[in-house]
């Protein structure tokens, strides 16, 4: 389970600037999971492990949705999402941003069951995971905040501040309402819509306290990754309790369906002027361009979303070209290159 350091709570000091800072942290945190999830997804060979790829993609799309929702809330309460900046992308391997109280080192690593168990399920672990079947108990929660508590704190601040006056002073035209199902991505303009947005983020990520199923009738992220880990879908238990069991369709994993890709390419380093370095630079420039495009989208030009989506599609193709065919270099025999996800304004 991810816990935020207690000083993060200091942002939730009951002031509007504090809410702005907390929402900016939320945006960065939602984004920070994407490179590591994408790296693992990209490493899956087309036509192989398709069920796993589909589950991972569904989580990734929701992380993107959560980032968009957090931006909408921040814009609604008069803030300005900052997406185009060098430290927006954390270093991999490394901790997630936002003052994470954890020893978890998040890597860029090709798909493996161990990665699912030791990283992705840890990132997504709810405060009080429902065990189907019972696994080891969650880490004892101390003073630090869970992600859910963090978002709940933001919600409470918004509610309290709204009692004193209107804080929804942002330009309504800045709201992004395209690119995701309209039931999930809605404009934020008052306490009710802000609360709904926060609930969507938390429930899709963690489920609810009583059910692993989110309002869109899908298992929350933790349970989707658990499905991959256990190799079976989560279905209602025919002999409850518990109410659910990993007893549905098989989700088979074919280890041959993963490209042999370098782990943590920034640490490994590509030889200058090698094909790996050249292609990595192109990927990083394109990823940075995506952040710039998203910054524009969430700072007044939501109609530019398609340019950003175009960049996402381009990134997928660039990553595939690297992972499927470009050797990482003579010091990494047998391994292909993967993108290092580093902020690069020039090539």
């Amino acid at each position, binding site marked *: 389970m991810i816990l935020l350091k207690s000083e993060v709570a200091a942002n939730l000091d009951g002031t509007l600037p504090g809410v702005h800072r907390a929402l900016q942290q939320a945006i960065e945190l939602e984004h920070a999971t994407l490179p590591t999830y994408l790296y693992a997804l990209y490493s899956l060979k*087309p036509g192989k492990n398709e069920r796993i790829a589909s589950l991972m993609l569904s989580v990734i799309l929701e992380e993107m949705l959560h980032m968009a929702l957090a931006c909408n809330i921040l814009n609604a309460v008069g803030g300005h999402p900052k997406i185009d900046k060098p430290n927006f992308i954390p270093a991999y391997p490394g901790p997630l941003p936002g003052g994470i109280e954890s020893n978890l080192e998040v890597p860029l690593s090709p798909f493996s069951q161990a990665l699912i168990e030791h990283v992705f399920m840890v990132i997504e672990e709810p405060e009080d995971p429902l065990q189907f079947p019972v696994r080891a108990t969650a880490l004892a929660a101390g003073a630090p905040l869970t992600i859910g508590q963090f978002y709940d704190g933001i919600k409470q601040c918004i509610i309290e501040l709204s009692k004193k006056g209107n804080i929804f002073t942002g330009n309504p035209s800045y709201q992004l309402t395209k690119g995701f199902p309209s039931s999930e991505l809605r404009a934020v303009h008052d306490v009710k819509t802000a609360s709904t947005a926060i609930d969507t983020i938390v429930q899709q990520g963690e489920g609810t306290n009583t059910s692993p199923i989110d309002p869109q009738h899908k298992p929350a992220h933790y349970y989707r990754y658990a499905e991959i880990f256990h190799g079976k879908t989560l279905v209602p238990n025919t002999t409850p309790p518990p109410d659910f069991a990993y007893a549905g369709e098989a989700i088979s994993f074919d280890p041959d369906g993963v490209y042999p890709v370098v782990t943590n390419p920034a640490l490994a380093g590509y030889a200058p*002027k*090698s*094909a790996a*370095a*050249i292609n990595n630079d*192109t990927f990083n*420039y*394109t990823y*940075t*361009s995506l952040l*710039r*495009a998203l910054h*524009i989208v969430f700072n007044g030009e939501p109609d*530019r979303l*398609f*340019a950003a*989506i*175009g*960049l996402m*599609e*381009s990134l*997928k*193709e660039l990553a*595939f*070209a690297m992972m499927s065919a470009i050797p990482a270099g003579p010091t990494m025999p047998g391994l292909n290159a993967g993108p290092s996800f580093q902020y690069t*304004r*020039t*090539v």
Partner: protein
Amino acid sequence: MSYLNPLRLHFAGTFQAAPSTVNNDPAHFDNETFLPRYQKYGPGATDGWWNPRGNADFRLIGCKVTAAWQAGKPVSGDSILQCLIADSDTRVAGKLVDLDTEQQMVSEIWGLEVRICTADGSTLVKGRFQPAAFADIWQRVPTGTPDSYYGAMYQSVLVDLHWADVSGSPFLTALKDAASTGRLSIKFNVDGFDDNVTSPTFTQGRIVGTIGPAAADEPAHLVFGRHFLATPQNPLNCCVATVDESAGLVYVDVGNALPTSSAGGPMANLGALSLGYVLPPDASSSSAVLGIDNINYFHLPDQYQPDWYRQTAGVAVLPANRALSPAEIAAVNKYPLALVLTDASGNAKVAISEPSDGLYVRADQFVYRLEPGETAEVKLYATAFGKPLAGATVMNILDSSQLQGQAVSDTGKAPHVATPPGAVNFPCSVVTDSRGIATLPIGTSDPGNPRHYIDGQVYGVRPMLLDTMPPPVGYPFNATEFISILLWSEYKIVSPPTWQSLKPIFQQYANLYPVMDTFLNLADYESVCKHRNLLLLAFGLPVSDPNSMPVTRDLSPAKRAAILQWLEHTGPDGKPLLGTASPTAPTATASKAAETGPPSASMKGGKGAAMARRMVLKRRT
């Protein structure tokens, strides 16, 4: 005016161009005979050729401003000298696109944004590169191999300019003031292309270029100036110059005119290179050339100037240390300009010159995609010794000689080009106005389906000045300067459009662009349905958008409308209509109509193979 301007910057670096090569072979368009191996790498013109998984990206990489000139003087101490020339940092890369599998010699750049930015990437000015095709392609390395031995150039304008605060740079401030027309002129030379799939720099090549102001009334893709035209005997390629009479200077651009000693390498040492003008009556005699000044690409006898090309992009302003006298200017305005090479023994020869009569005509935009019934209004610019040629008669000729209608190696077939001839129509002559400009309307009608499995037909139209016809023996001529047209077949939308009626279109794209399998299987109904929303967006974008589908810009508007209509209207199952399979269309006629012949281009690169397939080289058997 144009980039040949006292106010200009030069840049140098690397470009990337990564087109798919499956569509290099016209036979690969035939869904009925397509084989999986056509999507695999194959040496030369075999299987999927040199880059079957190409994504068409065109990028600028590591391009640095290498020099800048203001008021005719070299700029120093200005922050422009630390700047980069980069492509978009908020959109996907530009795209390199052939007009057609049977006209691959006018590859266009679409959707490119060009930025002048600081060394850390902050944009100072950006503009949209108006789509342009390369011109003046030639074999630049005499001893090289295709495609790396080619050189070519692009000239266009940057429009929709957005300026940041450039007050810190006097040069950029002046450029901004000069760009009140809303346009900048840009020209770059490309060579040394790396088509070796095992090389780290695969799909990259050398680029050097120039950016300057663009006048409101000047052509976008053509210097309204003095054109040096090559004959097969000339060691230099076609190039251009302008004369600044008030300053007494000649701007000459030899950036794509000098051969190199290796692909993307130093200029070949041809001896002393000088600009002059040719006194009558014998334009071919070097003794009749009066020199203006030398172009110092070498410290003779043999010391190459490695920075010369990077810092000038091949542009020289001559004479270097004086102005032309009024008498010289009068002579320059009257006699053809020439570039003269003088070897170590002092033997001089004209390496290239303007025609003896100084006449020249060319279309500004020379690549068109047209629907049946659509008319292209082609602007022709005629000059005599660089001055507008008013009242000149321009003859227009249907000329398919440079199109590629011959068979390709191992498939052995290629449909006929430029048939039926009657589907394009235009006046046989037009007359230029007082500005030397004539508008040539090229009208179209449905060509039918003459190529069966390839949509539409390609045509060439060559404008020539009546006064140059018939050309005397040895009269210089740029064979690549003609108007290329892709005329689409009429397409009637089956109502309502269904997957079954559209599948051949999708199947062909799936065959020709294997890289698309990264995103979806274009030949599979379920996969296409799953990506319906994205496809609706991508097919609905203007073709100028770098994300427009298909990347090849070869889908007719009628077929595009059918695809959009099909994607928009879903059936009860929430998916676009599947429809029922129709009887298979006969394809035997396709192979009957196909040109068959012996392998002609098996071990060449893409452009090399296309060069070898030009109709002008067709064997008469």
